């Protein structure tokens, strides 16, 4: 039985910025490090964590049946095929949203805490009930955002709500970074984003076509394509989350002589 379980909310405000992808990859990476990890799909409206993990066809019960006491927790948990340290608790029917309360989420998470070291909660977009339910059950949070004005604005809103609910620490992951666009100032820079959000940066994730390929295959990058640029980013984020001191590098500086330097960047472990 785990004692000091970390319950981490993965949220963003805006949709489509990469929460579910981060949850899946972080889940795999933590499990790889030998930590028993549960990923909880709290996006009941648009569940797709199961898809990304390639576990859709193995789901029998969901969080809904657990809450309604129609099954035990371990019956609903879906163990990952390759990574046995990782389990998914699937989201129930979207109609659950009609009755689900913050206390229900707390109950589910309390059960998960009894057997896992890490609980990652894939949060729905928005700041309404779905978000509030998921937040109620969390201790700390990772904000995912993109280097875009609207995503940063929404992230800022969510950070304010997390602060008032005493969720901490709140750390930042900047996803879909394109060093070339940052260098040419077509994209918000890392400083632009961290200046506004005033949060510690847990890591950057590069824009990477492999993410899309892996999503369609139901195999997170960190599972089988560990050498792809984004996979390295996810792995480093997992390590930093575990307290390892892995320095961040500035992608713009690294890409300022494009070509050779950029390839070096893609190969570096530091990202």
């Amino acid at each position, binding site marked *: 039985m785990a004692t000091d379980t970390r319950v981490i909310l993965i949220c963003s405000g805006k949709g489509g910025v990469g929460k579910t992808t981060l949850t899946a990859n972080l889940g795999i990476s933590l499990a790889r490090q030998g930590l028993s990890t549960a990923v909880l799909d709290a996006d009941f409206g648009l569940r797709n964590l199961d898809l990304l993990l390639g576990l859709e066809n193995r789901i029998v019960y969901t969080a809904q049946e657990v809450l309604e006491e129609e099954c035990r927790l371990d019956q609903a948990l879906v163990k990952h095929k390759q990574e046995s340290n990782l389990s998914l608790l699937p989201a129930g029917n979207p109609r659950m949203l009609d009755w689900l309360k913050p206390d229900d989420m707390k109950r589910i998470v309390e059960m998960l805490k009894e057997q896992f070291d890490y609980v990652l909660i894939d949060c729905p977009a928005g*700041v309404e009930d779905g978000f509030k339910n998921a937040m109620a059950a969390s201790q700390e949070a990772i904000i995912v955002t993109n280097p875009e004005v609207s995503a940063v*604005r*929404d992230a*800022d*809103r969510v*950070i*304010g709500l997390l*602060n008032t609910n005493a969720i901490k620490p709140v750390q930042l992951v900047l996803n879909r970074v394109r060093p070339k666009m940052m260098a040419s100032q077509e994209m918000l820079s890392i400083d632009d984003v961290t200046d*506004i959000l*005033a949060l510690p940066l847990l890591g950057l994730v590069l824009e990477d076509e492999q993410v899309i390929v892996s999503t369609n295959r139901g195999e997170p990058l960190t599972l089988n394509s560990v050498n792809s640029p984004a996979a390295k980013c996810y792995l480093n984020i997992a390590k930093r989350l575990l307290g390892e001191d892995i320095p961040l590098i500035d992608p713009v500086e690294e890409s300022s002589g494009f070509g050779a330097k950029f390839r070096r960047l893609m190969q570096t472990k530091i990202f």
Partner: protein
Amino acid sequence: MESISKRIVLNMDNNNSSNWELYLKNELKKMNSNNIEIDCKDLNLSCIDIMSIIKISSKFNCTISGFFSTSPKTIISTQSLGYPSQFIFNPYSKKSVNKSDIISDQSKAHFHQGTVRSGEYIDSPGDLLILGDVNPGAIVSAEGNVIIWGKLLGIAHAGKKGNSKAKIAALHLRPVQLRIATKVARGPQEKPQIGLAEQARIFSEKIVISPLETM
């Protein structure tokens, strides 16, 4: 060289607060360190005043490592000149109630520390003092002045019950929109000069922005 900094306290009493330059010189004469910090107490000092403190100190071969003050105006001045500055919150300082030209009614003044984020709203029945940034999407308003020791990137409304003498001051003034009393203005398009605190106030029926030291 000795690097531990010694602190000079500009402890002026009510009668001779205009004599702080003389007082500073006397203190500097007695100094046996080249590295000093200055506690300006409740003196209200402009950027120009701070620059003359720096000049005087350098004549005595002293470098200033930082400033302290209970006056927001002084802190904004020192901060905008790039010095490490610490604001000491002192709501009971009688002197600043009487003398301060920037905090008009400190009894009702509101004090907020930390970033004001998108969707957040802070309001004060007197002046509003914010130590932190006001982000895009945030709104801050006050019946008196709005003073921001940080960046103003959202919306600020000073004198919202109609006081057209109210001012908005910030270290970095680049709001979406400014409102003073019943006047509304869009924020300036061009970036302000780095290191120059600015203020907005009504001047001949229009909101104008100028460097803070003319306050």
